[in-house]
């Protein structure tokens, strides 16, 4: 399977072949300036089969999911959803992403959610800083402290009983998909 076929088979990448490279997505993207490959360009790279460049890129991790590109695209390519699909592919194949710590916060979020049933922000943030750079935590410590003092950062997670059924469902889903 070529890379473009692989992407087109994902949930989010379905319409990639409809792209006419008009650049409206990039023109409407608030963080295009931070991306090595803004939306239009990353689509061009996918169609050129440059799998490694695309999946190891930090570009889609700079996407804010603001859906401006999806709204504006005249061909219904849905670049925002495509960014999710590309990040999922990169995660599935364990690509190491240089130049952004966004993957680490995403992983902290999901593990907090699976452990507790709901996200526990303090736990998520602590795990994030421990796995990336604990020193940076000092910089934003004042923000965290204010949230803590205003009761917006509970110390303990709210563990719901739903977490057990959630974990069972996820396990089962992986079995089902693994067997297909």
């Amino acid at each position, binding site marked *: 399977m070529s890379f473009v076929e692989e992407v087109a088979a994902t949930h989010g990448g379905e319409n990639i072949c409809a792209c006419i490279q008009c650049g409206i997505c990039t023109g409407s993207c608030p963080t295009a300036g*931070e991306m090595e490959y803004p939306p239009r360009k990353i689509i061009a790279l996918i169609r050129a089969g440059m799998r490694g460049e695309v999946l190891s890129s930090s570009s889609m991790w700079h996407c804010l999911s*603001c859906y401006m590109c999806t*709204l504006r695209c005249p061909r219904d390519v849905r670049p925002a959803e495509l960014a999710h699909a590309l990040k999922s592919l990169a995660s599935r194949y364990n690509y190491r992403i240089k130049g*952004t*710590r966004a993957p680490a916060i995403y992983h902290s979020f999901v593990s907090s959610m699976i452990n507790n049933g709901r996200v526990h922000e303090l736990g998520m*943030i602590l795990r994030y800083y421990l796995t990336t750079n604990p020193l940076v935590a000092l910089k934003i410590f004042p923000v965290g402290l204010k949230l803590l003092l205003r009761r917006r950062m509970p110390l303990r997670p709210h563990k719901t009983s739903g977490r057990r*059924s*959630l974990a069972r469902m996820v396990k*089962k889903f992986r079995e089902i998909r693994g067997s297909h």
Partner: protein
Amino acid sequence: MKRYAYYPGCSTESTAIGLGLSIKAVAGPLGIELEELEDWTCCGSVQYGSLDELEAILVATRNLALAEKKGLDLVTPCSSCFITLTSAGLQLRKNHLLMSQVNEALAVANLEYHGNVPVRHLTEVLASDVTTEVIASNVKYRLNGLKVAPYYGCQLVRPDYGFDDPDFPRSLDRLVESLGAEAIPFPLKSRCCGGTLVIPEEDMALGLIRKLLDNALENGAQCITTPCPLCQINLDAYQSRVNNKFKTHYNLPVLFITQLIGLALGIDAVSLGLNTNIVSPGRVLDDILGAGQEASHGA
């Protein structure tokens, strides 16, 4: 009383506790009954969808299945939960294989989903079901003259699920106006605040937040109001970080729309969680209390 199944979202119990509290405080007076889903779990948000786009649909659907048992519309106040739950439902309707796999997995928790839950954002319920007329008729303290920047954020109106214009939405403006306040023109009203990337990519996000604060002030805002938990925390808690970085002096209160409504209904500040806002909403409160006194003098 109109009844709804209620999905609060994780943040209403923590970082956006002011949103959770103020919703509980205004629901009764506005004639809506929100039945919280028992045992709900996190919707997964963009984060889960960025690590495994299919499994993300499963974890969101657990909550849809809980709501379907109730047979009511599912209401959430969180913009991110709103698009996550809505999009999961839409995908399942289109993809029958996925629907059957999801149901096979749900079955281990004695749940099932048939695709019949309308997901609605609280802002839409307030504007369309409760209606601005009913809100206006319940106002005790009209917020006359208060200049409010209505900030929608991005995920409330995009992708376009059809309840408001994705570029120039008006529903929040109308809610603000129903309280007697002035919804100022706010060109960046549906631009992104940086979302969760404020943690790993702070510099990038602070730039976006600054533009929003600047645009609101330029247009004469005395405060900003938003329905979105993520927008509120970025504009409120990170305002001092913007000031540090850009040597600015912003001091603009950011209230949840339900806090603003609650004030106009005459509900006390603590019940509305206003003591949990970082930039003190004191000025807004003073204006309202002042106006309230004038109103009672006039009477």
